[in-house]
């Protein structure tokens, strides 16, 4: 029995939440559906941890769905990179679920909660599926599962603020455009190669050599994923979606959805298109690099002037995605390590900060910064968590933010790109400003008269503090995350024939 479970772990990673979703819908109102979904999220986390342990050694795990051999059947392929991402996604889900109970109870009517948790599990399924699969079309399918459920989750914020509906609608349109681009790109690849398995695609693309269709395919996939990961001018869906979604949803998707999209970009760029066509490098240097740097500054500046805490954090996310893309644009080993390590570091930090924002929404009824005046005295633990997370966002030593910036700066110095290193530090200063605005309001300004704000419940504080703790723990001892990121970067480089910058 145990044997069967162990050998089928890769399938279970996706199947468990997928099957659990309709069951959850049938459990009816109240805490039952929540408890069930929480249990499932714990289970998926346990599975991804064991997958990570198995893949950490180096040998990728290949699993054939239904016993159909690839390239015809669907293959699940797990190496260090996606095992790492799987762990991030399911780990965040396992922390968000306990957090969600009180937060969701205050934002969504009881009779709808079962459906909410169903959508949540489906979203989790989609994200895990995108990450684990080794089949290009399968990526599209899971991407759609996660996107459609995310639209529903964002729309469920409508009970708090009706604008969530338009935000979800916009996200739906834009997300669909992105997914369409992505599937067009895959279609072009299929035209050339006649296969959809990633490993097989890589081999056949290499045999086939350069062609216009290939270039078209690359560009369409790049833009499609760029939209999903909120690359700078394509980020317009993100601020509204993040600020109007229910708090639990925001902390979950902010910490996972864009990270998974970055993973897909890495996977396609290096594993699938893994041969040295000059247009790839020039796309990175001429499109991705400027876009990343503009994102770091423009989005941070917008964040400085925002009044709504969730919206401010959303813009900060766009800037942080800029950092990830920047690491990728370096096209060096250190740069990739920076990107991958920042996937984790940003997930932990932003997850914690959005959880804190959710605590404020629960207690103060709003996340507007001006209404958080003096909240440091009423909600000391929540505010302290914000300060710790904010420090990590700035990139202070002994927090994970510092580790990411350290690698980024190192990568730019290795190439001798001094101005880029200076820009990285300059944009960190902008983070100081927007974090400080909240700290100032919370601690230095007097509380308005007659407002009662109770400290957030433990079920919300504990997950937030676990994430804060992780962001400090891995800031002090980063050996696990950096080793994993370094090995993941090695596999990406090993699987590609791109000329890496020295």
């Amino acid at each position, binding site marked *: 029995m145990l044997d069967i479970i162990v050998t089928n772990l890769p399938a279970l990673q996706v199947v468990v939440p997928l099957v659990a979703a309709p069951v959850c819908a049938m459990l009816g109102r109240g805490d039952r559906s929540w408890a069930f979904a929480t249990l499932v999220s714990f289970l998926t986390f346990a599975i991804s941890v064991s997958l990570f342990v198995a893949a950490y050694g180096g040998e990728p795990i290949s699993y054939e769905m239904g016993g159909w051999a690839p390239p015809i059947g669907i293959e699940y392929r797990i190496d260090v990179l996606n095992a790492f991402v799987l762990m991030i996604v399911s780990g965040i889900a396992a922390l968000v679920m306990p957090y969600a109970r009180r937060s969701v109870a205050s934002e969504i009517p009881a009779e709808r909660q079962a459906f909410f948790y169903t959508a949540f599990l489906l979203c989790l399924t989609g994200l895990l599926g995108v990450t684990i699969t080794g089949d290009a079309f399968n990526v599209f399918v899971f991407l759609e599962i996660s996107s459609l459920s995310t639209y529903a989750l964002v729309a469920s914020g409508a009970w708090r603020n009706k604008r969530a509906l338009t935000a979800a609608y*916009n996200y739906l349109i834009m997300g669909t455009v992105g997914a369409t681009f992505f599937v067009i790109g895959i279609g072009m690849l299929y035209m050339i190669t006649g296969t959809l398995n990633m490993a097989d695609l890589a081999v056949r693309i290499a045999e086939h050599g350069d062609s216009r269709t290939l270039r078209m395919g690359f560009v369409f996939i790049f833009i499609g994923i*760029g939209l999903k990961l909120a690359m700078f001018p394509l980020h317009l869906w993100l601020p509204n979606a993040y600020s109007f979604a229910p708090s639990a949803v925001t902390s979950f998707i902010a910490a996972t959805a864009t990270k998974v999209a970055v993973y897909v970009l890495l996977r396609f760029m290096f594993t699938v298109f893994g041969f040295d066509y000059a247009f790839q490098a020039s796309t990175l240097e001429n499109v991705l690099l400027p876009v990343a740097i503009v994102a770091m500054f423009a989005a941070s500046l917008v964040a400085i002037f925002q009044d709504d805490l969730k919206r401010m954090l959303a813009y900060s996310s766009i800037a942080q995605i800029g950092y990830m893309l920047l690491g990728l644009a370096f096209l060096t080993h250190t740069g990739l390590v920076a990107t991958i390590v920042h996937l984790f570091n940003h997930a932990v930090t932003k997850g914690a900060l959005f959880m804190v924002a959710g605590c404020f929404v629960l207690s103060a009824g709003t996340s507007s910064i001006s209404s958080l005046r003096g909240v440091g005295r009423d909600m000391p633990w929540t505010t302290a968590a914000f300060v710790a997370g904010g420090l990590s966002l700035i990139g202070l030593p002994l927090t994970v933010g510092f580790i990411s910036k350290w690698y980024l700066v190192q990568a730019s110095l290795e190439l001798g790109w001094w101005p880029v290193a200076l820009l990285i530090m300059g944009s960190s200063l902008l983070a100081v400003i927007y974090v400080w605005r909240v700290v100032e309001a919370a601690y230095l300004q007097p509380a308005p008269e007659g407002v009662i704000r109770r400290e957030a419940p433990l079920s919300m504080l504990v997950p937030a503090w676990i994430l804060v703790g992780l962001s400090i723990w891995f800031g002090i001892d980063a050996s696990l995350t950096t080793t994993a990121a370094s090995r993941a970067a090695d596999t990406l480089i090993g699987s590609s024939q791109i000329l890496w910058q020295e």
Partner: protein
Amino acid sequence: MPEIGTPALVYMVAALIVPFVRPATLRQILLLAVPVLGLLTFWQLPYGTYGTFNLMNMHVGLMRLDALSYVFGLIFSLAAFLALLYAWHVRDTVQQVATLLYAGAGLGAVFAADLVTLFVFWEGTAIASVFLIWARRTEGAYATGMRYLIMQVGSGVILLAGIVLFYRETGSIAFSRMDLESPATWAIFLAFGIKCAFPLLHNWLQDAYPAATITGTVTLSAFTTKLAVYALARGFPGTELLIYIGATMTLFPVFFAAVENNLRRVLAYSLNNQLGFMVVGVGIGTPLALNGTVAHAFCHILYKALLFMSVGAVMYRTGTSKASELGGLYKSMPLTMIFCVVGAMSISAFPLFSGFISKSLILSASADTGHFFVWLALVVASVGVLEHSGIKIPYFTFFAHDAGHRVKEAPFHMLLAMGITAALCIGLGVFPSLLYGILPYAVDYTPYTVTHVVTQLQLLLFAGLAFAVLIRTGLYPAEIRSVNLDFDWTYRRLLPAALSGVAYLVQGTWRFASRIVMGRVDSLIAGVYRAHGPQGPLARTWPTGSMVLWIAVLLGMTLVLAYI
């Protein structure tokens, strides 16, 4: 005891617990237990480095136990215990916590195997100790504390700069022997020098120590400067420059001490002078000299604490430590008087007292290595020590003219603390092998030879004679209230005056320039706000159409690039 990395941890944890412990007696017992526990954590450990881990590819070692750090760890624990015993009557939580943190940071720094750990504890001693000064809660103490803090933190900042440069140069943060050859090591040297009160960098010491609380001064006298001596002995043994710095340090405070009226400040000058002996020892750098430095630091902590304790006890009873207001106390406080004399004889290096067995090592080392003038300077300074600490302190406090104080003897716990310290001073003087056995290098040295004893006694007797003659003839600088100008006048009075002139000129230029620049900055911020503010194009909620337009633009751009 389980291995816990660094004994500093014991102190830190205790500092967290202490504020919540009641009643007062229980808290005092807990306080006294802390140094004992701290000592037990490394007492029996074999030599080696403990508490090692990797911090961003740098090797950190919290506790390096070897012969050098062991002696300092031992004496710091002992000093912490004695200081806490002496402070049994203090009910001020701030002082108790500050004492624990300060002693803990001092121990942590001594055991630090790498420069980063050293830096953290280095700053720790600065920040914790300033509260011992502020605890007096007067405006003067506050200002003094601020000046002290600026110097100490400044030392830490320079140390950090040095460490960063050092890491860039060598790729290592190990704290071991360094050479004065690059900006990095010079910065580290300067940071050590500030804490060690090198000449011209020394004023914080005479400024701050007399300003602290009675018990605070006893604590302060033990750790900060000796930590710096340890750091020099670890990092710069055999650096010739140190010999001359040290020789200067032994000489110049003598004169200030002779004319100073505040007895606690006299002791602060004398402390500076004693540091000079240790610095000379480090500078010579031979095993004998380093042994001398370590031994002298060990003995010095004890007898200097004893002197500060006895003057403190007098101050506790009479409310003053000014020579002009004291005198004739031998009737009211006979035991304190005896302990003070023991301390005075130790610092003057009378045979059979601790100062003799440690100072002889340094004197012999300087003579052996042929530094004749240095040796002479040290001998002259020794005469000065006898004069200002050995005779002046007990004479003006307990004898001289009767100032009319009729007070009780010092409280029992103070007497106990002084008694233990005095016993240690005599014990080490009579049985030097106790101390020699734990010195970093093997010692083959006999302090009690006829020559040594006779030379020293002659020196002392003639110095005593000179004092007597000067007092009789009225030539000795009388104990008058006075403000003595030291080097700090230049930066506390002269520099501000000069600066205010410069400031006037700069201000004019600045106003003119800033009006222009501010205008530019304002319009820049307005521009940024127009683009990024809540209603700006970058923050507005755009319809889906515009987003699709962006997709088209980006797609077109990338496609064009891909086809070129």
